[in-house]
């Protein structure tokens, strides 16, 4: 009965590879987010989709591309992975434009 789930939980890959992280929420929320927690532990927003429409696109390298096939899913695809992409990536969702966001368990990406 996980509300927001992410796969995989851990991802180890080499520089230059392309990888995807999947996120699904079963809360019926309209808005979903991707956050990155870097080595200094800051949580920073990357993208947000509302009903499959991109509404937040922070200054993120264009190697990162979110895709929302439906409002319950928001995937993150990363091309040409770099060492600096190593971080924990969190997916989150929210019902409307105000209120708390519910986070997934995170995906720890390690680029070697």
């Amino acid at each position: 009965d996980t509300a927001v789930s992410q796969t995989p939980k851990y991802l180890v890959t080499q520089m230059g590879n392309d990888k995807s992280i999947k996120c699904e929420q079963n809360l019926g929320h309209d808005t979903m987010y991707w956050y990155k927690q870097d080595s200094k532990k800051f949580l920073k927003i990357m993208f947000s989709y509302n009903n499959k429409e991109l509404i937040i696109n922070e200054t993120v390298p264009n190697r990162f591309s979110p895709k929302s096939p439906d409002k319950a899913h928001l995937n993150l695809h990363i091309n040409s992975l770099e060492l600096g992409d190593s971080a924990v990536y969190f997916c989150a969702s929210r019902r409307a434009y105000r209120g708390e966001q519910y986070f997934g368990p995170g995906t720890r990406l390690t680029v070697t």
Partner: protein
Amino acid sequence: DQQVKQNSPSLSVQEGRISILNCDYTNSMFDYFLWYKKYPAEGPTFLISISSIKDKNEDGRFTVFLNKSAKHLSLHIVPSQPGDSAVYFCAADLAGGTSYGKLTFGQGTILTVHP
């Protein structure tokens, strides 16, 4: 340009006592504030929030206080329990909901509650 700051990286408290976690912000356009708790290898879990029209919000052992003139909020946990040991993040949202939920997070405070 860190708009939300948690200046105490860590806090250690005895079980049963009060834990006070602090957060400062610089952007006067923030009008909605949230506290999250995070255990290792898990995602942040929502604890409590407060709108700028209030100065206090309570939920069980958790109370959040907001001082808009000082641009400061605090989370009080009374009584503290060992299970409260976690990283606590404060987050802020912009006025009117026009940010679409673009939360700005502080860097977190590690709370340790000793039995």
